[in-house]
């Protein structure tokens, strides 16, 4: 069970949904109108495509950086974990890059993998460069966030994975896709591939990308501004939401923690719109806590763990957890990533730094290449005002915008999945 799964199971229990009664009359059948609700609930099972009857999977554990020294506290990390789904005939291979904090088997990645596999593709799923396992085992600098450096790390991982499997599978072409942060990174990986030419990706699909990470992070963090006492009281918020859910559970007639319970919570409107936003902000914090801690340990950066402290495999980490959950991604960018980049490029201004965290820096390339496509939603809350139009300008009619679905909530909806898979045809 990966950590997102833990978190998701709980949030799913927590938040849920409703399936909103009627769909708006716009010919699009995804039923959940609210952006936050859609993001939390995802797609009801009966509106998903059937999974493939069987799927041949191999877990890859990659030794990307030879002779890397891993601290004791990460003793369980045996190498970068990726997943290969293989056809037993010649087929195109699609690389899938996970979103913020997600591993190679997170729910969205697996959904993409199954959809592609069913349509006859080989698939290799890659964890996000913000996922602890990636930071520890596959990142040369162990500091995620810089799109150019992350793309170089990802490219190296793809080459390593490809070298490991190329004797076993027959591949006709290479494709690339990613979601959320992984979509933004896919654009930079594709750019790098134009020089390196190992894969010569024929098509690249970005699903619910961030146009600029800094803007998106500001928007996600803003979700916590409205909780009682603001983001500094995130612990109290967590506990009060939990108490609310506990009271609900006590009153109701449920036993199992399943989808039905989720939907009941949703229909009952247990959580307000603001509270739902807060829960999304909170789950990002829980995820980024792992990223911040892992990076700090690997670089001996003295950010949340005292510099030069050597943690053992069984040292208590609860205090670090508490600290990391209280740090926003803005803190991380301003206090950790920016100073790190300044050491390498002393002339880098804050404005240049922020610009470098988005598609703008490579927009000329993106505009000129016909291999890209974008799928996103009109109510995806990670996009700042104007960014949706910017995507349309960049990619023209290869931009597919759905009227609702929040951030990735409609990924598994049958129309979306059909379009997603069909893009590579």
């Amino acid at each position, binding site marked *: 069970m990966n950590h997102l799964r833990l978190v998701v199971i709980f949030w799913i229990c927590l938040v849920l949904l409703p399936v909103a009664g009627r769909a708006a009359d716009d010919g699009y059948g995804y039923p959940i109108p609210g952006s936050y609700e859609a993001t939390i609930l995802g797609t009801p099972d009966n509106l998903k495509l059937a999974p493939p009857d069987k799927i041949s999977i191999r877990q890859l554990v990659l030794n990307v950086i030879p002779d890397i020294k891993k601290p004791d506290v990460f003793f369980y990390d045996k190498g970068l974990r990726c997943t290969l789904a293989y056809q037993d005939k010649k087929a195109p291979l699609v690389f899938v890059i996970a979103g913020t904090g997600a591993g190679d088997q997170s729910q969205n990645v697996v959904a993409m993998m199954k959809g592609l596999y069913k349509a006859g593709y080989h698939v290799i799923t890659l964890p996000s460069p913000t996922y602890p396992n990636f930071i520890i085992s596959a990142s040369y600098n162990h500091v995620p966030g810089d799109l150019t450096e992350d793309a170089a790390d990802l490219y190296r991982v793809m080459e390593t994975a490809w070298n490991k499997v190329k004797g076993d599978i027959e591949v006709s072409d290479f494709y690339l896709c990613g979601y959320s942060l992984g979509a933004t990174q896919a654009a930079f990986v594709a750019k790098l591939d134009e020089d390196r030419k190992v894969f010569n990706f024929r098509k690249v699909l970005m699903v619910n990308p961030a146009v600029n990470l800094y803007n998106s992070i500001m928007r996600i963090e803003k979700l916590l501004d409205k909780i009682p006492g603001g983001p500094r009281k995130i612990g109290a918020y*967590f506990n009060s939401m939990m108490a609310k859910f506990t009271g609900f559970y006590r009153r109701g007639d449920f036993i199992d923690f399943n989808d039905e319970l989720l939907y009941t919570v949703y229909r009952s409107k247990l959580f307000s719109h603001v509270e739902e936003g807060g829960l999304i902000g909170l789950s990002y914090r829980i995820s980024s806590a792992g990223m911040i801690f892992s990076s700090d340990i690997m670089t001996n950066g003295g950010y949340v763990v005292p510099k030069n402290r050597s943690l053992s495999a069984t040292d208590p980490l609860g205090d670090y957890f508490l600290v990391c959950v209280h740090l926003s991604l803005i803190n991380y960018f301003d206090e950790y990533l920016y100073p790190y980049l300044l050491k390498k490029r002393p002339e880098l201004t804050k404005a240049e730094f922020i610009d470098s965290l988005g598609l703008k820096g490579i927009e000329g390339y993106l505009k000129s290449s016909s291999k890209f496509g974008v799928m996103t939603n009109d109510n995806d809350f990670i996009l700042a005002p104007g960014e949706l139009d910017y995507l349309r300008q960049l990619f023209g009619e290869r931009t597919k915008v759905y009227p609702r679905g929040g951030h990735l909530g409609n990924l598994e909806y049958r129309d979306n999945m059909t379009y997603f898979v069909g893009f590579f045809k």
Partner: protein
Amino acid sequence: MSVAICRVYAVIAALYFLLSVCGCATTNTVKFAPEVPAMHSVSEFSDDERVVDIEDPWETFNLNMYKFNYNFDRYFFLPVVSGYEFITPTLVQKGVSNFFANVGEVRTFYNSVFQLKGKKVLITFGRFAINTTVGIGGLFDPATRFGMEAQSGDFGQTLGYWGVDSGPYLVVPVLGPNTLRSAGGFAVDVGIRYVIVGTIDPFQNVKNGYIILGGISALEAVDMRHKQKFRYYESGYPFEYYMFRFLSNKKSELLLMK
């Protein structure tokens, strides 16, 4: 049985020692320079409540046991489970799971009685009766299809029902995350099972019947691990111990309400 439990724990102690030694062999012995305080520390956030906070006075022991269980899984338990999954057809695995779940209804039944929960008692009795007969000795689970969902019930829950505090969090060797109450309850349930099996004595006319019983217990343990998707440290999340501690505590607290 008590001798058997002692033996099991002696084996575990030996394994723990071995695995600890193995662990030491790979310990990183790089010496760092003197420590420098971090930019952010816990005192800065003392005005907020803690997150996923569960009483854990034995944290050091628990963290060690968490790691021990990881190694036990990795080098022994999971390879055995994989072997079982490899040689056994899925249908048979399902039958084995159903069989032990059906045996477990007995535990749910008496604990529901102890907790004065009439509805649970009736459902559990109905499930056991249907699955044992129509379900051919428990190999199939028609009761669920008839709308009688499996109930939960163990002695740890019974203690909770009668107001016994959950006690500290406790990671038990092999069994994994528990509380003192649930671990104690487990021991009581095992004891009750021992008395029941001893009374019925199903293999009284069989030579070396205790070997068969031992084999059945081993199969039950393998089936139990086979059904659990949880893998220690698999999330890759550095704070997995804390998240998991919270979620498992919360879940048992919620189940106790039912």
